[in-house]
């Protein structure tokens, strides 16, 4: 460990603001990208489920129509 104490670690020899700004924003940017990627995945999965329900409804109404014709 290069630093004597936690407070020295956070201070980064007087450059604490810049070092933690750089690492903090980088971490936020990466987390944002990961969250956006998960959101996009959920979006596609929901679209997939909606499409399947729609197909099922179409099938069901077709069956009904055929039933009423008889």
């Amino acid at each position, binding site marked *: 460990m290069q630093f004597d104490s936690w407070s020295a670690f956070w201070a980064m020899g007087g450059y604490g603001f*810049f070092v933690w700004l750089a*690492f903090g924003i980088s971490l936020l940017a990466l987390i944002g990208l990961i969250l956006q990627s998960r959101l996009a995945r959920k979006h596609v999965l929901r*679209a997939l489920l909606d499409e399947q329900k729609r197909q099922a409804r179409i099938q069901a109404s077709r069956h009904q129509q055929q039933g009423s014709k008889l």
Partner: protein
Amino acid sequence: MWKWLHPYAKSEQAFRLCGRLLPWLSISAGLILGVGIVWGLAYAPSDYQQGDSFRIIYIHVPSAILSMGVYSVMAISALIGLVWQIRTATMAVAAIAPVGAVLTFIALFTGAAWGKPMWGTWWVWDARLTSELILLFLYLGVMALYQSFDDKQQGGKAAGVMALVGVVNLPIIHYSVEWWNTLHQGATITKFGKPSIAPEMLWPLLLCILGLALVSAAIGLYRFQTELMRREIHRPWVKALAGDGRTQENSNAI
């Protein structure tokens, strides 16, 4: 000879391969990047000129290198998509571009936060910084072009052409510190021969580069899977996934 590769161009196989790789990639990415960052921040010796501000190197250099590395991967995918008309390659272009854009943003931002205490300014319009900013605009352009087409096949082609044209920027970024007078320092570890950095500083840096590369690969593959599902949503293999809960759990762990 390379025939064993062909099935992986098919979307279903590509999807499954990504699913198998993702857990390993995510775990090793988190571990290696974590070790590298902690080592760099807490255990590496401080610089005799720059004090502890030099520790920004452990995120700045990896993100800058990868902003260009990821662009190369994207451009190669674009070339494959355009020349051999492989659809999955154009999907990879769309999946990779946002990852590269975020890496470029990180490189620019951490560069600014490093420049302020060392150069006395957040930003200068010099060759290295400006060409890196252009790289960010290239990424955003590729993303916007892909988004703006309803026909994603056409959008993929247009974005691919833009990605290929933008390749000219890569050597400009790399050699900008040699071709022009600049505030930015020259290459430290990509120099031929001996790198001009102490090994105690170099090892955590290499770990950070590898770790961030794995993070980028994991996020890229995850996005690529999503793009495959979006583009082939009417295909039977995607429909079969709807009941499969694993696709929802398959996110990376960082």
